[in-house]
């Protein structure tokens, strides 16, 4: 009985919200529809996706390297990783983005590749050309993400039973082989859920690049509403796109988690389609 009452209340509240959203003309749903697939908005969506994918890729690769370094028996290697995490986790990501976007070309107007300490230069270029605002955005987000991913990966690695290291060692596997083949695949079960979380978070955090005038999704709609003053509907456009992609990412995460549950669970959890099928067949009375 209580369940029915709760369901009725929830349905009633949902109806109130939907009714008010549909009837309040200030939402300007027509404008939302008009701009949802606007080429400038779509370009912003693409930039946001590129930023997210590239920054997460950098973050994950860096995170794995830093985590393995952190667990190295060599104190110098361990210390280097610690300092990196200390610095990039200790300053706001917005500051880091501003730094890459504005600060780096002021500090190092010319960037060159060659032998350090005054040796010959192989290639060099103007910092403003090399580090475009897009590169600055990716660096700011990716290097920061690396510090967080390092801790996530490290937590995953130490969650793996010590006996696994010993078994692999006793078979003659080296530390790196053990890491890559035995420990990391098992650590994945612990690493994936927070990484999915980080990716979803990155999709939204990437909007900070609007501060260095990089036209991602949010900055694109800002540019549009600063001219036509359709602020609310354009923010809704951005929100809808963000929601769409976070939903996609959540679904992807479910399947990745399912894949890495192999061996840990006797039976894999059902996929959405499998769930639907059981539900349908039960309805049909099979």
């Amino acid at each position, binding site marked *: 009985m209580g369940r029915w009452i709760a369901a009725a209340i929830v349905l009633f509240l949902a109806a109130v919200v939907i009714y008010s959203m549909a009837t309040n003309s200030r939402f300007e749903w027509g404008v939302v529809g008009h701009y949802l697939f606007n080429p400038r908005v779509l370009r912003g969506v693409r930039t946001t996706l590129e930023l997210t994918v590239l920054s997460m890729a950098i973050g994950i690769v860096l995170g794995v390297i830093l985590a393995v370094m952190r667990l190295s028996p060599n104190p110098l290697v361990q210390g280097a990783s610690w300092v990196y995490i200390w610095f990039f986790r200790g300053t706001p990501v917005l500051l880091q983005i501003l730094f890459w976007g504005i600060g780096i070309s002021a500090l190092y107007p010319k960037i060159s590749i060659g032998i350090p300490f005054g040796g010959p230069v192989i290639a060099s270029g103007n910092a403003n050309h090399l580090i475009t605002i897009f590169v600055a955005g990716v660096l700011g987000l990716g290097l920061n993400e690396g510090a967080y991913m390092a801790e996530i990966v490290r937590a995953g690695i130490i969650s793996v039973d010590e006996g*696994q290291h*010993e078994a692999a*060692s006793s078979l*003659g596997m*080296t530390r790196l082989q053990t890491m890559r083949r035995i420990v990391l695949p098992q650590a994945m079960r612990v690493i994936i859920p927070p990484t999915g979380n980080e990716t979803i978070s990155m999709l939204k955090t990437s909007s900070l690049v609007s501060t260095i005038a990089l036209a991602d999704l949010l900055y694109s709609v800002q540019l549009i509403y600063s001219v036509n003053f359709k602020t609310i509907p354009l923010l809704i456009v951005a929100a809808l796109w963000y929601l769409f992609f976070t939903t996609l990412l959540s679904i992807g995460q479910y399947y990745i988690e399912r894949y890495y549950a192999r*061996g840990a669970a006797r039976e894999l959890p059902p996929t959405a389609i499998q769930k639907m099928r059981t539900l349908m067949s039960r309805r049909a009375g099979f």
Partner: protein
Amino acid sequence: MEAMLKAEGVHKRFGRLEVLKGISLQVNPGEVMCMLGPSGSGKSTFLRCINHLEKIDAGRLYVDGSLVGYRQQGDKLHELRESEVARERAQIGMVFQRFNLFPHMNALQNVIEAPIRVKGMRREAAVQKARQLLERVGLSDKIDAYPAQLSGGQQQRVAIARALAMDPKLMLFDEPTSALDPELVGEVLEAMRQLAKEGMTMVVVTHEIGFAREAGDTLVFMDEGVVVESGHPREVLANPKHQRTQAFLSKVL
């Protein structure tokens, strides 16, 4: 005949606790040595020293004539590099109390992993060999099963096959049946007995007195980090000379 395993005054301490206080013993090729003793006597630690999972603090350990974990130059010992230690370990099989199978791999993958990665064996050859080994331990129908789908006894037999896949010269067993339900102990001991019969050199830390009596060539009784008594299993079990051995055996027999 050169000894397969030779220990000379092996010492090991964890912090202030001295776990091994000078262990000296020898195992010849094809022999099965069983180690008995109360928990905390240092048997497992000694076993782990043999493949350098633990570093010894003093003494010498030789497997098949070469020093474990170190290289001797003059009278100085140099610790081997990681890859060299790994190469030494590849020749020594180890079976653990808690099986330690790789849970994300099925039985076959568990067995072929090291031959492919460490020995550089070709996949087809490794698979063929793994099938034979799994058949030998009576698990030819469980090749695709993941560890979580196997009983403890089956897991331990996969672990034995996994160790054998590296063609070890020496097999170490660290209480291989202690984590098993009583009705599953027999199948694992049977696999070990079979292995002993085929001439494998084995060092077995165990509480299975029956196994020690039937399959063992020597029995070593350890207590508080020293070898209290050793000899032929039937001899030691029937007429323990030392008081501590007598006391221990009276409790377990």
